């Protein structure tokens, strides 16, 4: 009986203590800072071929913020929208855009040769560099950036397949660490605002 009472007291005390402690935690601990930088395992080393025929790696762009959009030139709607919005954003950013390297990485290396991408990109801001590579190289980037990429079966056969893909623009900091994603359907002005904010936050 005494043992049981003792146990009950201990349990009650423990309960009270834990409630007090969690209340203390709730009141006194700072809000958990939501941060997506640094530790998130998005991104990683890559080797690809740029539209200017240079072989580039993730190291090539260290010191600059990277704005990476994954798409393909066969895509008639979403990709021109995103590339156009990025072009508008670069314009809006003015000289701040100098700290940034926009990249258009194909998810369709079979059709997107370096030449095809170079031609295609002449319609957009000339600062956007297109990157392509072998299927293995592109697959590796897709994996590192945890992209969803799926080739849709052509309804009538042939070569005109479409590709479903993640509709985000990835922002990496000058050290190559993942910072955040921006939805690819945001308008250019909004992308510029987001970029300014992310870059300013990092400088703090």
């Amino acid at each position, binding site marked *: 009986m005494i043992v049981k009472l003792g146990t009950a007291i201990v349990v009650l005390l423990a309960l009270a203590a834990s409630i007090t402690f969690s209340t203390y935690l709730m009141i006194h601990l700072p809000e958990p800072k939501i941060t997506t930088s640094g530790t998130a395992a998005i991104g990683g080393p890559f080797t690809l071929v740029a539209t200017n025929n240079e072989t580039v790696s993730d190291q090539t762009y260290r010191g600059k913020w990277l704005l990476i959009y994954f798409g393909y*030139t*066969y*895509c*008639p*709607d*979403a990709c*021109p*929208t995103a*590339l*156009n*919005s990025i*072009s508008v954003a670069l314009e809006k950013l003015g000289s701040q855009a100098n700290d940034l390297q926009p990249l258009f990485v194909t998810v369709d290396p079979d059709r997107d040769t370096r030449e*095809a991408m170079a*031609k*295609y*990109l*002449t*319609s*957009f801001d000339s600062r956007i560099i297109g990157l392509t590579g072998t299927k293995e190289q592109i697959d590796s980037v897709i994996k590192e950036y945890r992209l*969803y990429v*799926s080739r*849709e079966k052509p*309804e009538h056969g042939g070569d*005109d397949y*479409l590709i*479903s*893909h*993640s*509709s*985000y623009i990835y922002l990496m900091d000058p050290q190559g660490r993942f910072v955040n*994603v921006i*939805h*690819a*359907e945001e*308008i250019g002005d909004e992308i510029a605002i987001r970029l300014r904010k992310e870059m300013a936050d990092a400088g703090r």
Partner: protein
Amino acid sequence: MRRASYLVAVVLLVFGSGSATQAQTPAVNSIVVEQPWARATPPGAKTGAAYLTVVNNGTTADRLLGATTPLADKVEFHRETEENGVSRMREVPAVEVKPGAKVTFKPGEMHMMMVGLKQPLKEGQNLPLTLQFEKAGSIAVTAAIGKVGAMKHGNMRAMPPGYSMGK
């Protein structure tokens, strides 16, 4: 006022450009095609996109079954859906337009994808499109070609000369 002059401009455009002429005879045809437009294509692009609005002023549903253009091998209707950050394109075999309803093809939602472009679509030029409806039959329209990546209709240079949107 701005809206009114815009409407006038649109009406002038549709009448003036000679496009959608059948659409302008509602007594015969209750399907009206408004503001057909297309995006200019980047060099080397094999595909292009066109957009428009189909209005059904009639009392029975109709279906848009297909479209053709002399500038591409084929035209497909695609609807973009997004689930968990992944944009997917789905071919839509036919687009139903209920009586009194309006279906708009626009960037990010639904587009007419031109596959096998025979020439680049150039800003300021026109793209002839023939739409095939189940009941209304075929309706020929002329889509004004706007900028690469343009988000809406309204490229002045693609309009017939002499018409202005006003201020």
